[in-house]
């Protein structure tokens, strides 16, 4: 289970402290999933960063009783002058996985060919994305964090991601954040709406969907952090 308990996060800005998440609480059981809907600047990415552990809450606590992935397909942790294979080895070593058992899967999924053994700095955007996703799959996490905006690529890539994630790993938990209610409706059994750092919980996706669509058209003036 993941338990987010009264978590707040604020950042220093030149205009003083700005609270991005305000006493957010949420529970996610093993094998379950949740969608988090929010407009730009609502605090979705911040919530994902806190869940992954890349940042710590200003107050409140997050208890994780299952392994949580880094944001899916996130390529920021790649070292540009390392090869795709080096990056696979690094990620596997960090998480205590034998990289030798994963080479075949990553090579096949990414279809990088000879580029798998070339520095990542030579990769195109799409190649980075495929490598990022494959590495997320190489470590078998209990819970995946999916920032929908991060998964870019063509339709075929999306379909293959879909198979890996929602078919082959349908026993896992996941948290999906998106500004698109259609995506949440498609994949999630439950949904929350994040508005101005406050999390609104709903029993059904439809209720969340209605609430989200009824929000005032003009989003409140805020800056994506």
């Amino acid at each position, binding site marked *: 289970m993941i338990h987010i308990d009264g978590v707040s996060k604020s950042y220093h800005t030149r205009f003083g402290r700005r609270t991005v998440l305000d006493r957010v609480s949420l529970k996610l059981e093993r094998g379950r999933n949740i969608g988090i809907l929010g407009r730009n600047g609502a605090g979705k990415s911040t919530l994902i960063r806190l869940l992954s552990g890349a940042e710590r809450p200003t107050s409140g606590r997050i208890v994780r009783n299952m*392994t949580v992935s880094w944001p899916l397909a996130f390529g920021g942790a790649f070292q540009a002058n390392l090869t795709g294979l080096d990056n696979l080895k690094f990620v596997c070593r960090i998480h205590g996985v034998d990289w030798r058992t994963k080479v075949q899967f990553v090579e096949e999924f990414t279809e990088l060919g000879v580029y798998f053994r070339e520095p990542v700095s030579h990769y195109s955007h799409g190649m980075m994305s495929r490598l990022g996703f494959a590495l997320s799959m190489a470590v078998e996490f209990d819970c995946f964090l999916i920032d929908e905006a991060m998964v870019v690529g063509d339709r075929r890539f999306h379909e293959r991601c879909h198979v890996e994630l929602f078919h082959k790993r349908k026993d896992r938990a996941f948290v999906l954040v998106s500004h698109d209610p259609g995506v949440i409706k498609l994949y999630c059994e439950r949904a929350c709406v994040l508005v101005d750092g406050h999390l609104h919980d709903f029993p059904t996706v439809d209720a969340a969907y209605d609430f989200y669509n009824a929000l005032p058209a003009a989003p409140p003036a805020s800056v994506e952090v």
Partner: protein
Amino acid sequence: MSTDGLSAPAGFRRSLTIQRRVIGALLMREVITRFGRNNIGVLWLLGEPMIFTLGITTLWTLAHLVHGAGSIPVVAFAVTGYSSVLMWRNSVGHCCGAVQQNINLLYHRNVQVTDLLITRILIEVAGATASFIVLASFFTAIGWLAPPVDLALVLAGWLMLAWFGLSLAMTIGSLTAYSHLVERLWHPCAYLLFPMSGAAFMVDWLPSGMQRTVQYLPMIHGVELLRKGYFGNAVRTHFDIPYMAMCCTVLTVTGLFLARDVSRRVEQE
């Protein structure tokens, strides 16, 4: 299904296992990214400090800079002195900005701020140590340097210098995460500390008033101990290892505390 080591509650032993694994992975990554696979690759780890030490040795020899060395040849003096400087100066130097440079790695939950710092310190200490051993062996082989009188004391002095480098690098490295100002200030400090750190003189040569002043600098005691081990009774040394140990303890605790605080404040781009 659960990846080993990740599942909470993680006991102390488990945390230690994870930390060892993470630092191991970071070491391999760091070595490849810094030195690459071309030409001599990882050997630059000791090549860099060796070139520095050799340069200083040549310079001091040509300039006859070291007076009063008496029974110690300049080469012996430079190799022991400059290698000691590298221990703390390089460790701190490479920890400056280390957190900001590796901030994305914190997305991997097992990677902690202290791991990033310890990795860089280990590399520097290993490089300086290897360079010291290779140079000392080389000069001994060609007869310019007598073997150490007391190897145990040399080792003790070296370990103390390593501890000092580690504790100072943890502290300064963490401080640079708060403000770039620290990094800017560190460079002149390192530059000014070099001539005062005991690399280029022995405490005994100084007037007694100055002796007391320079002995406030913790690293001096490590260098003196190292030279006591290397040259035995050929030199008169002044060192206070409990004082140095106390300074290192304070710096280590401060460094660990700051590193923990940094990990709470860290903000991704």
